[in-house]
């Protein structure tokens, strides 16, 4: 039997990813910030013994794509095979959300509406009558609170019924008569055109009036004469263009629907949340919680990481003596075993202890909606470095990992901002580099130097951004939704963290083990010395560091966590604290490795997202910035 395709569509923050998570077992990254799903996530699910393919598309405010993520959704919707659309609607923002619903009805695919965040709407004092919506739109409507798994079973049942029935008429909503006449006129002009993509004739007729740029050229040329007249008439009658007229039409329909199907039973504001929000968003006081937030995260990661790392240290130190006797018997076997063990103990004793608190905090934080508030607060400052507030989100994600951060640049509408943000992201210390910074800082310099390095990278991002923006013109304006504050769910945060830990164990751990093994072999066969010689002028000459660290830089290119494991291995010590480095050298080394090169995965994603020229610029830029920065630190410290 043919596998049927279900697409989840909705506005940003409507909870599509949460619905998707419940429907499938995959935990896709969901968060309370517009545009976290920038690539679609897919999964196969089974309902009553039948297999369905389900896809979670990036949120769109309307079917007039602005940024890359929205373009992706539009392309998927029009070009891929879809048997059913689940329109996830934020019930607490009903009237705005219904505008997209109206547009999807025009599109004409079979549809089921999930009125999500039902509990949130009730909390706001909004009484909604879903049966009235069902009657008005003549499509199935289900109420859900996906976060708590409520209503999802019914949603699945209704979807199954629609798909089993095979044929579903999706009646479009009629416009006011004079616009309706125009729409029908364009629709008639299109009647001889065979539409290859998804989407009804009516949908393309409306889009022709609203946003003709979206139509295929052959379709557009067929209706050119009629369209010109229609658009001219609309402009005369409404004193505005087709885009605004059609948008107001939908707005009007959505408002009317909203009035018909809902009313406020208790129009009380939520005073406490609003008060908190006023504080968080205050133009001056708002920076205070921002600062506290960053410092608290820093301290939490430092202490939790340190504690976990110390507790792992003791049992791990007991193991190497167990196989020490092997060295005399077969040095190659000892080198191999020790290489694997060093990789394992590096992952368990150094990388994971800092990685865990970081990803858990990020998961909680993403849920609250604070990210978009930071974007708003930072807009003024970001303008000074040639960007706008929206770039803050990819930057903050960059503290986790540069790869999703680079994908997140897709939420930026403008190519200029995307490129600039993409070039700056590799400078932000990701979780892997955070591990290296913290592990070495704890062993040698204390937490303050870690903080200095963080502040220094912020300075580097600022200055580099300012410098680059001199070549690429002015930034465009910010338009950003600030979603309601939410109490984060620990359950969701736990499952999301677990998903990322699994990811780490699956992809990073083998890398660490194999890398560490390779490093041991390089030492055994003395190849590392050749590599070290290549890097010696830079490391020894310019930065005043031991040349033996050269080979760690090569491994660091593959995974930044490897730097710490490799440094131990290269300098022949079993514990980081025993490294023959002075605190000053450690700081210079840290500054260099934090900035020196995007890692392999970042490299690939940069290539994929921005083409080779940007990769080249990024590479040269980071080597230059890292060398200059580390040299400056050397002048002061060594």
């Amino acid at each position: 039997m043919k596998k049927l395709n279900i697409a989840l569509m909705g506005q940003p923050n409507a909870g599509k990813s949460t619905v998707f998570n419940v429907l499938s077992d995959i935990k896709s990254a969901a968060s309370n910030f517009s545009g976290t799903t920038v690539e679609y996530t897919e999964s196969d699910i089974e309902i009553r013994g039948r297999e369905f393919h389900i896809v979670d598309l990036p949120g769109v405010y309307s079917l007039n794509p602005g940024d890359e993520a929205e373009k992706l959704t539009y392309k998927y919707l029009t070009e891929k095979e879809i048997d059913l659309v689940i329109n996830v609607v934020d019930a607490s923002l009903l009237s705005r959300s219904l505008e997209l619903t109206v547009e999807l009805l025009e599109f004409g695919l079979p549809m089921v509406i999930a009125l999500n965040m039902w509990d949130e709407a009730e909390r706001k004092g909004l009484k909604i009558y879903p049966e009235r919506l069902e009657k008005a739109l003549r499509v199935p409507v289900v109420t859900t609170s996906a976060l708590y798994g409520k209503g999802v079973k019914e949603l699945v049942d209704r979807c199954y019924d629609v798909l089993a029935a095979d044929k579903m008429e999706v009646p479009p909503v009629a416009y006011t008569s004079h616009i309706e006449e125009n729409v029908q006129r364009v629709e008639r002009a299109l009647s001889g055109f065979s539409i290859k993509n998804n989407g009804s004739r009516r949908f393309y007729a409306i889009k022709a009036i609203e946003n003709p740029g979206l139509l295929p050229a052959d379709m557009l040329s067929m209706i050119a004469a009629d369209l010109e007249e229609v658009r001219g008439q609309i402009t005369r009658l409404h004193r505005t263009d087709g885009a605004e007229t059609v948008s107001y039409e939908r707005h009007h329909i959505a408002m009317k629907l909203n009035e018909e199907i809902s009313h406020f039973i208790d129009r009380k504001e939520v005073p406490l949340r609003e008060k908190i929000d006023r504080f968080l968003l205050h133009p001056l006081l708002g920076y205070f919680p921002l600062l506290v937030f960053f410092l608290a995260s820093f301290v939490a990661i430092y202490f939790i990481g340190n504690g976990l790392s110390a507790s792992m240290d003791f049992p791990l130190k007991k193991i190497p003596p167990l196989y020490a006797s092997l060295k005399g018997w077969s040095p190659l076997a000892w080198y191999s075993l020790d290489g694997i063990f060093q990789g394992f103990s590096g992952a368990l004793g150094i990388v994971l202890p800092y990685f865990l608190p970081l990803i858990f905090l990020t998961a909680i934080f993403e849920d609250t909606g604070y990210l978009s508030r930071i974007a708003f607060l930072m807009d003024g400052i970001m303008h000074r470095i040639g960007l706008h507030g929206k770039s803050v989100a990819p930057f903050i994600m960059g503290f986790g990992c540069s790869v999703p951060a680079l994908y997140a640049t897709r939420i930026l509408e403008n190519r200029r901002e995307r490129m600039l943000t993409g070039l700056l992201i590799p400078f932000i210390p990701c979780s892997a580099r955070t591990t290296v910074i913290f592990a070495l800082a704890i062993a040698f310099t204390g937490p303050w130097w870690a903080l200095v390095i963080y502040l220094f990278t912020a300075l580097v991002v600022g200055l580099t951004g300012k410098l680059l923006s001199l070549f690429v013109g002015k930034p465009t304006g910010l338009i950003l939704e600030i979603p309601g504050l939410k109490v984060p769910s620990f359950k969701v945060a736990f499952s999301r963290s677990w998903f990322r830990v699994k990811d780490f164990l699956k992809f990073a751990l083998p890398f660490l083990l194999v890398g560490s093994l390779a490093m041991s072999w390089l030492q055994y066969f003395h190849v590392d010395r050749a590599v070290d010689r290549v890097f010696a002028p830079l490391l020894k000459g310019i930065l005043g560091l031991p040349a033996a660290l050269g080979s760690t830089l090569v491994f660091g290119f593959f995974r930044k966590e490897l730097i710490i494991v490799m440094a131990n291995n290269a300098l022949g010590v079993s514990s980081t604290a025993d490294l023959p480095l002075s605190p000053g050298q450690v700081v210079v080394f840290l500054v260099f490795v934090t900035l020196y090169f995007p890692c392999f995965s970042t490299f690939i994603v940069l290539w994929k997202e921005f083409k080779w020229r940007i990769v080249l610029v990024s590479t040269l830029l980071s080597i230059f910035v890292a060398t200059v920065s580390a040299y400056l630190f050397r002048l002061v410290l060594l």
Partner: protein
Amino acid sequence: MLASFPVCILKKEGGSYRQSPANSTVDLQVKFVYDLGLFRQGNKTMTKINLAEAPADVELEVLELKTGMVARQRLLAMGVHAGDRVRKYPHSGHGAVLIANITMNSSKVAIGRGLADRIMVGYEET
């Protein structure tokens, strides 16, 4: 704040606002696309100003989105339309402007200062 910005007075005449004759060279008829009961009845005098310079914590009525096509589509999709009543949050005078839409009861929207300069709003002076 008002002194730095040219102020024109709009008067309501049968369902639409008209610029006061004193400085009216252009007929600045503000669009009334739909009568949704969003507008208060009765004669009133409105001050037209751009959103960036409009006062905070006052009920403002969005009159015109003079931004480029892309920004306008985005604003419309996020629920900022001419005719909507919005409230602006206090701000420092630089950086983005934050508004809450009273008509739509939707989430807050942050708008960059350059764009806010080009969104015209009206408010009733008390």
